[in-house]
């Protein structure tokens, strides 16, 4: 992102962790206190105390914008009061839990959308999130932990952050905190130990967090290298002695259908495109669809656009052929298709799109994406 584009916008800083209780909020508040002591105007715009005494102590002495009270189904919920923060206009606003979904009746459905408003107003925002809330990692997380995370943040929101900080702690220390009751209330601890916090989950999530942080750090190097022209020996050997133009630009095409697995396909395509620095497109070829299927397609197209994927809709009698022709015309290097659930008679009748695309695109690369909801061997 060019610096000029961001000059009037506030910067975003994300504290990234791998589970509740690793100390994201604690570290954010600690850094905020340091800044406040040096005279920076910092306010706590949203803070989730979770009844953790150590963390609550960190808030003391920091200026706070009171939360907004919202009535929903005869209960009172607290949300960030975005308007009040805008009026207060601090230099830095602390907004805990970026992935949070606002209660119905709030102005914007997601907290990350509230954060966009603050950034646009020129306010710097510091926020916290866990690796499992990154949209494109959703299926990997499901595959690893068996848990489907509902609250996610689109990758581009994380990408716009000027800075990512990995908050690291060993799983052992985290489990100790959990057992001491420093993370959840006692009645929640048993449930946590049997679910997200069980066995190898923590190690796997921790590794994902470290790799994600390394990737984010590298992306910011690319941005700098393009504008500065510095030659720095890099971690990725692929980049040594090679300018960007010399590396063949990959272009990825995602085939959208009404199948539920399309969401998984979109996330994976987006993620691979990000890593390969590839262009990412999506194509839907309409057929006779039932109302529910049409709705599913609409949802998938919307989802693709929310991840900043360029979507196309193209008429064609033969769906696989239309996809392959589009790919050839648009210099696509890789087509992403879902695993189909077709039966033998459907295969014989040529109704299996992914199979037909694999066969038809013998001059292109076709990736049949994993069904990550099916855990290996379980």
């Amino acid at each position, binding site marked *: 992102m060019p*610096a000029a584009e*961001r000059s009037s916008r506030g910067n975003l800083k994300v504290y990234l962790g791998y589970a509740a209780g690793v100390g994201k909020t604690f570290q954010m508040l600690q850094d905020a206190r340091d800044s406040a002591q040096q005279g920076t105007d910092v306010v706590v715009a949203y803070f989730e105390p979770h009844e953790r005494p150590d963390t609550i102590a960190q808030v003391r002495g920091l200026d706070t914008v009171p939360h907004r009270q919202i009535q929903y189904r005869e209960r009172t919920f607290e949300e960030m009061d975005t308007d009040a923060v805008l009026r207060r206009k601090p230099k830095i606003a602390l907004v805990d839990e970026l992935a949070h979904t606002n209660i119905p009746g709030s102005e914007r459905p997601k907290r990350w959308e509230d954060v966009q408003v603050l950034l646009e107003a020129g306010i710097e925002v510091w926020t916290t999130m866990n690796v499992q809330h990154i949209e494109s990692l959703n299926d*990997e997380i499901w*595959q*690893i932990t068996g848990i489907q995370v509902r609250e996610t943040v689109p990758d581009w929101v994380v990408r716009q952050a*000027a*800075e990512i*900080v*990995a908050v*690291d*702690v*060993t799983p*052992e220390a985290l489990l100790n905190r959990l057992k001491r009751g420093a993370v959840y209330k006692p009645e929640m601890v048993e449930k946590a130990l049997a679910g997200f916090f069980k*066995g*190898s989950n923590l*190690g*796997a999530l921790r*590794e*994902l967090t*470290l*790799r994600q*942080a*390394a*990737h984010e*750090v590298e992306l*910011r*190097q690319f941005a*700098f*290298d393009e504008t500065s022209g*510095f030659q*720095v*020996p*890099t*971690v*990725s050997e*692929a980049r040594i002695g090679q300018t960007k133009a010399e*590396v063949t630009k990959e272009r990825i095409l995602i085939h959208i259908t009404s199948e539920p697995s399309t969401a998984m396909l979109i996330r*994976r395509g987006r993620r691979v495109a990000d*890593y*390969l*620095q590839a262009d990412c497109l999506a194509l839907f070829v309409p057929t006779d669809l039932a109302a529910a299927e049409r709705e599913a397609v609409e949802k998938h197209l919307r989802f693709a656009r929310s991840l900043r994927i360029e979507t196309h809709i193209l008429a064609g009698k033969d769906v696989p052929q239309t996809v392959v022709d589009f790919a050839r015309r648009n210099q696509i290097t890789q087509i992403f298709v879902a*695993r189909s659930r077709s039966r033998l008679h459907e*295969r014989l009748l040529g109704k299996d799109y992914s*199979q037909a695309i*694999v*066969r038809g695109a*013998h*001059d292109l*690369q*076709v*990736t*049949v994406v*994993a*069904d*990550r909801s*099916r*855990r*290996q*061997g*379980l």
Partner: protein
Amino acid sequence: MPRVSDLPRPSPERLLRQVQAEENKQWGAKLKIFLGYAPGVGKSYRMLDEARRRHERGEDVVVGAAQGQHSEEVQTILSKLESIPQLETTGGQAMDVENILRRAPQVCVVDPLAAQNPSGSRNAYRWQDVQELLRNGVSVLTSVNLLHVEEYKEKVQAITGRDTAETIPKSFLLSADDIVIVDVPTDLCLWRLGAQLTSIGISNYQERQLSELRELALLLTAEVVDAQLESYVQTHGIEPVFGTQERFLVCLTPSSNAAAMIESGKRNKERFQGELYVVYVRRDGVSRKESDRIEEYMELARQAGATTEILESENPVEAITEFARQKRITQIFISHGSHRNWRDLLFGDPILRLVRSTEGIDVRVFPR
């Protein structure tokens, strides 16, 4: 649930690591390392803060070695902990291992880990002193800078021009019970070092260098965590975990466009900071010409940094699926089929059978 006999066998290196770790554990001694990517990230503080908390919780903590210059915060913590003075020799200072062992604390703080002992000391390097403490049942909290990891020395030198004689082997890091990365933004690190800062993001050459070191340190920690995860999975006899690191498996046949597939595998491996495997499934009755060609491909693959293997099986789909499961592969690269026959139409061709048998893995089909 899979039977234990179905699970992949542990490698000899891992078994050795396990034995070493278990030897230490007999005494309950644990090694915890705080890794930083540069001076000024706050490793010493994080480590000493943990030492202080353990001391307050009633553990018997001593300081065996501490670094020369300290911030006020570090001084405050040090004043609360018992120190065992270092040995003064004409060649410099060394940790007093003998005294520490006599004192026999539960936990000893060793800061920094990478130090060369003066000649005539009982061990040449401080990390060997640490091993001795662990063997004798003393847990160790220690800190190390990426620059001092032997295998990273050259990379760091290429980036920063800094060199050092005081290094520790990477295998020592891999043997740690715990490793924690102390990660801070590069601008904060620069600011602590007293440098000029201009704008947001990466602002200058020095910060760009630091960013590179930061990436290396994050990836090194991820590698250690992955090794721990693998040994956890092994010792608990549970299924391998998928998807934590991207692992690419290129499956070649004599008619594959091997150069393109290996090149793509290499690029993917580098971009994802992943691992690359290249295999060939050999069936009976392979011609001389074909095996020569495969040998050429394998050599190409090794030059590209891949781990190569030849699998013997009459059922390629089964052999590849099994190998992929063992190695926790996330993407399989294969070639488009060359022809179709009635058998393929009825049972699905090999590509589709592979796609069906590897549900949790991406399958990428390449042109011939």
